[in-house]
């Protein structure tokens, strides 16, 4: 394994020269072992203000009830469920990277899986808080559980997708947490063995006594593979069930069979966009350019084009089926979406999710950090509008024209949403400070085979096809972390 040489045609996953195992450890632990810089503090203070706003707005909702939101008789679900689905969707990229890419043996996942999984967990926390706060009487949230009670026992309705969703989201959260934490153990042990005093004691408790002996590592890999195997169908099931919250109802615009695959593709789409939004900044601020390389960024952009196009096809299919179904309610729902009072939301969604991601077909754009970062935010805006369009435009004009209404968010709606973003970033920034943002052990696995220096050595040995070498060197052009002078000599 470690002695095996990777083909020169594959782009390097670790760039830079003179990278050693200890350099990987110190580079990745730099933000954990040192005092935070000013950029972190600025980000953290802003995020903390957002989180405080969230605490206030959610407490206000609990105290005064969901009447403080802009909901009305016609539009009974709006920003709450939009926010819920948006956050759950964002979470999906973490599991996709850690589980699906592991099964497909995509080694580039090794340097991004840790922070993507952390993002999953924080996103699901944000989503879950929406579920609780939209219940109206959150102190009765346990009623969604099938617990014996004094009303009969009257059990929950197991035919309801909302009950399935409770099982799906809680399973998803807890299994993701297990997967993430088990993967963290060796890296927490690394911090522990480099630390002293109280720090060492704290990390010692959380490292579960990890020693890195043969049996533990061997079992560790078996466990990771099985967890990846079960998380893959899990992540697909979660967003399938979220889509069934809508699809099993009889509301025109919701009652469609393409919802499950369409929601899953959309979830992966928005999740990868959020991973890019976070990591493009993190790699710069934390100086991780050698580990999260242009190859990683480009690969994620390719997934964004693919899933964005699937979402685009789904939008068109929905329209076609609405017409082809011959159901006038279904037809009206879609005509109303694109040309009714919420036309701007619909076209916002179309532009951000279908049209602008197509720019990533151009190599210049998908290997440009600023352009990628802006597009990743555009995608997230688009995906928020997608959920808003599905939910609000399907509801706001129901069967009786006299009850048609518009939805106007109150300051509480807005604060809960902006606050949840603050909460997410607060958790993410704290994570960057206390835990390694890249899986140290997994990146070390790549050093001898897939790093730039290992490949340079192969080239210097001189047994390689000249054409392949030229192609490889050309592929390094796009990397911002590669020094081209090294290759000019060859």
């Amino acid at each position, binding site marked *: 394994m470690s002695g095996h040489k990777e083909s020169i045609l594959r782009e390097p996953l670790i760039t830079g020269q003179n990278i050693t195992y200890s350099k990987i450890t110190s580079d990745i632990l730099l933000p954990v072992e040192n005092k935070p810089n000013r950029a972190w503090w600025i980000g953290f203070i802003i995020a903390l203000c957002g989180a405080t706003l969230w605490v206030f707005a959610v407490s206000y909702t609990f105290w005064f009830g969901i009447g403080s939101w802009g909901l009305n008789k016609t539009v009974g679900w709006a920003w709450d469920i939009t926010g819920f689905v948006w956050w759950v969707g964002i979470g999906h990229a973490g599991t996709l990277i850690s589980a699906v890419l592991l099964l497909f043996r995509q080694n580039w996942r090794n340097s991004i899986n840790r922070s993507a999984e952390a993002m999953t967990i924080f996103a699901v926390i944000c989503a879950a808080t929406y579920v609780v706060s939209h219940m109206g009487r959150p102190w009765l949230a346990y009623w969604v559980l099938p617990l014996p009670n004094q009303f009969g026992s009257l*059990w929950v309705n197991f*035919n309801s997708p909302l009950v399935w969703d409770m*099982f799906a989201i809680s399973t998803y959260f807890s299994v993701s947490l*297990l997967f993430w934490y088990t993967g963290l153990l060796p890296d927490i*042990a690394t911090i522990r*063995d480099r630390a002293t005093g109280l720090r060492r004691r704290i990390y*010692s408790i959380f490292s579960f*006594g990890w020693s890195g002996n043969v049996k533990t590592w061997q079992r560790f890999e078996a466990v990771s593979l099985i967890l990846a195997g079960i998380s893959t169908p899990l992540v697909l099931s979660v967003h399938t069930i979220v889509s069934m919250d809508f699809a099993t109802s009889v509301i025109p615009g919701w009652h469609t069979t393409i919802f499950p695959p369409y929601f899953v593709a959309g979830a992966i789409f928005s999740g990868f966009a959020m991973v890019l939004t976070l990591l493009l900044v993190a790699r710069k601020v934390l100086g991780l350019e050698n580990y999260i390389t242009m190859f990683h960024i480009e690969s994620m952009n390719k997934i964004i084009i693919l899933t964005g196009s699937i979402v685009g096809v789904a939008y068109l299919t929905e329209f076609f089926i609405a017409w082809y179904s011959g159901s006038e309610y279904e037809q009206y729902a879609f005509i109303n979406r694109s040309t009714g009072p919420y036309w701007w939301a619909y076209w916002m969604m179309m532009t951000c999710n279908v049209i602008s991601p197509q720019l990533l077909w151009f190599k210049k754009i998908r290997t440009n950090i600023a352009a990628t970062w802006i597009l990743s935010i555009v995608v997230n805006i688009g995906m928020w509008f997608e959920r808003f369009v599905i939910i609000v435009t399907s509801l706001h004009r129901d069967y009786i024209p006299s009850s048609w209404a518009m939805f106007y968010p109150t300051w509480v709606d807005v604060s809960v949403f902006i606050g949840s973003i603050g909460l997410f970033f607060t958790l993410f920034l704290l994570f960057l400070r206390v835990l390694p943002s890249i899986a140290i052990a997994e990146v070390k696995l790549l050093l001898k085979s897939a790093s730039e220096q290992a490949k340079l050595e192969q080239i210097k040995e001189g047994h390689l096809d000249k054409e392949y070498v030229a192609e490889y060197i050309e592929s390094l052009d796009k990397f911002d972390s590669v020094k081209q002078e090294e290759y000019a000599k060859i």
Partner: protein
Amino acid sequence: MSDIKYILGSFGDPDEMMHGIEKLQENNIKIHDVYTPMPIHGIEAKLGIKRSRLDILAFFCGLTGTASAFALIYLTSVVDWKHNIGGKPALALPDFIPIMFELTVLFCAFSLVGAYYASTHLFPGRAPRVMDLRATDDRFIIAIDAKENAEHSKIDDLLKDAGALEIKYNERKYVSYE
């Protein structure tokens, strides 16, 4: 007899460490354990670590989850209190599938990770049994029981030949207790 408990060969490269394991085993020197900062494939075969049976456990615990979910739904909504939902049958099996699936995954994951932690003695607050603090950073450590293998100078030579950067004689088994 000296107080040396363990001899540690500290390697900077996994391939050299593998070579060291081979050398020692050719000379019938028993290896206590090997500590590495990352998983190295092939050591477990050399050290005679058996294949993990965690997958079998995970499979059966998964099945338990499926059965438990079915039992829960069946006993509550078919036996105990039937709901009349548009006159549809109470035993609506397709509707049971999502929860049966979720609980399969849940039981499988928790029992798998629980069994893994139990079998490798991982739990919060456990005193780390570390022989060399760099084994989680950049060194690949082969540990040899010094009491069982008396020929210390031979072990020393073998490890150095294989490319060990450093050889330590630990008088305590685990340095992390200090």
